[in-house]
């Protein structure tokens, strides 16, 4: 039989498997076939794990037969290529790790495996998750399924494009400064960045450890909730994770805050109109709020994230993982390997981090940024005394053309202006589609929630989701 993969959600695929309309092996094969046909044009996947996926699907079918079925059992998904799956190549889209095979699985991978998930493959990203367009992948750029001349966003651009092009049911991404939400916005899908500490980072190739979080990219909010519930929770291998139960909120009226700082210069007019229209649809009390330090968030982020990255990427020395170029001298060995295998953007960020942490600059840059981070966090704390959820655009611009912003680093960085403050404050946030531009490009609405209240956040987003058709 021919399985219709178009807009196939977790719930729908689950019903299909449960009713015996198809097996997980059949469903997985259908996806693998589609990837083979479609991914030539989109380039969402770096690696397709045909063998592993079919093996997992077979196991899932046995679980289903045995009556041990979870919503995610037998559902094929895609994994960003900075998340380790044991015995599968993991490149972080870097030449450095081109031939690196993971020696263990990330905690989120183990959790999904236990539920009988099927991993179709590893998706493209900007090298080491540093970028907003997927153009900084050391291998190839991914294209936006809505317009192949445009970027899918980044850094989880491969995951977002795979979901948007129906080349998987859902995907995992990572978000350090917007890397789940911005590509979800650009590709017209849903992306959730959980609260810092909600999901384990064990087995994720670290970029900026105080900001990184793993989260789902899905076709609707209901699916995002299912995946989030499956991957969250305390992990003894990540001391920043905590266990928590979110209290069920009684049916009360929610209050929505719209920061005046989000609607200023630099915001695309079509995006602005779509967001304002979406805000009216909540049918809730809407108040204007102020997040006075919004304008400093990006500068703060571009000190803290590279500083942490410069330390995290010190482990790539040519000895322990991936490639190597031989040299007589030890120091020369490290320098040769790092110089040859890191890409330009990664080198720039390592150097930027090294600079702001170096003696004489530490106080002026790094220490100051940590203090500004406190101010940004306090802005949100003040806002949440007045409102339940903060709403605005996910990205100030529409998906841009490949090559359009690759020259000037600042113009690229500015596309993260609404997302980075959420990571600095450690908050949960979701991006969902809220219509399209006149040239048919997706626009994303961002909702920012209170710490460890992902369900309340998603429930609020559900108030408007029904107004927008994904395709």
């Amino acid at each position, binding site marked *: 039989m021919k399985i219709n993969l178009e807009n196939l959600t977790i719930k729908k695929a689950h019903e299909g498997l449960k009713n015996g309309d198809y097996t997980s092996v059949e469903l997985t094969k259908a996806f693998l076939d589609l990837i083979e046909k479609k991914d030539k044009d989109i380039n969402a996947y770096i690696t397709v794990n045909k063998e592993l996926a079919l093996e997992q699907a077979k196991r899932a079918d046995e679980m289903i037969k045995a009556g041990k079925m979870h919503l995610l059992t037998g559902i094929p998904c895609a994994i960003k290529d900075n998340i380790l799956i044991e015995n599968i190549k993991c490149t972080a889209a870097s030449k450095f790790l081109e031939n690196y095979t993971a020696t263990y699985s990330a905690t989120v991978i183990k959790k999904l495996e236990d539920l009988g998930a099927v991993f179709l493959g590893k998706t493209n990203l900007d090298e080491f998750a540093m970028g907003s367009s997927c153009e900084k992948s050391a291998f190839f750029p991914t294209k936006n399924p809505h317009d192949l001349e445009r970027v899918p966003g980044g850094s989880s651009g491969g995951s977002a494009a795979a979901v948007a092009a129906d080349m998987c049911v859902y995907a995992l991404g990572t978000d350090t400064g917007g890397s789940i939400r911005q590509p979800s916005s650009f590709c017209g899908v849903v992306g959730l960045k959980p609260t810092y500490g909600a999901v384990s980072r064990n087995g994720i190739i670290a970029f900026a450890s105080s900001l990184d979080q793993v989260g789902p990219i899905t076709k609707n909010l209901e699916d995002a909730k299912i995946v989030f519930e499956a991957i969250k929770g305390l992990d003894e291998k990540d001391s920043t994770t905590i266990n928590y139960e979110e209290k069920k909120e009684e049916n009360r009226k929610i209050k929505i805050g719209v920061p005046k700082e989000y609607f200023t210069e630099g915001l695309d007019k079509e995006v602005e109109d779509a967001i304002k229209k979406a805000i009216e649809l909540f049918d809730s009390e809407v108040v204007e709020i102020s997040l006075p330090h919004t304008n400093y968030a990006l500068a703060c982020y571009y000190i803290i994230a590279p500083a942490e990255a410069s330390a995290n990427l010190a482990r790539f020395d040519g000895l322990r993982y991936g490639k190597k170029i031989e040299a007589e001298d030890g120091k020369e060995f490290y320098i040769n390997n790092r110089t040859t295998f890191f890409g330009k953007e990664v080198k720039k960020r390592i*150097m930027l981090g090294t600079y702001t942490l170096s003696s004489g600059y530490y106080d002026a840059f790094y220490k100051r940024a940590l203090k500004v981070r406190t101010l940004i966090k306090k802005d949100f704390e003040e806002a949440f005394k007045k409102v339940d959820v903060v709403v605005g655009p996910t990205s100030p611009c529409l998906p841009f053309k490949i090559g359009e912003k690759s020259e000037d680093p600042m113009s690229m960085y500015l596309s993260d202006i609404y997302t980075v403050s959420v990571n600095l404050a450690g908050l949960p946030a979701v991006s969902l589609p809220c219509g399209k531009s006149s040239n048919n490009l997706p626009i994303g609405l961002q909702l920012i929630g209170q710490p460890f209240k992902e369900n309340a956040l998603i429930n609020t987003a559900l108030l408007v989701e029904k107004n927008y058709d994904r395709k």
Partner: protein
Amino acid sequence: MISEEEIKNIAKLSYLEIKDEEVDEIREKFSSILEYIEKLQELDIDNIEETSSILKIENVMRSDVPEKKDNKKFLESFSRERDGYLEVNKILYNED
């Protein structure tokens, strides 16, 4: 704009090498970011505490139970291995 000498020094600290023909481009891109992050100097931060992590977690303890792992897999990921150890080059030397 940041000087050529400074850029070369940062590269050295980062264990990266910059070719002469790359210096100008890196100086330019680096400077545009530095100019942007200068913005933070406008703020009065005298009595503000630092936030290095969003969670207030103190020592998280667990018992130290050794886990049996397949060593072979780890050894295979080494670039050079001898008798079950990672082999490295000489690393002690006098600076310059």
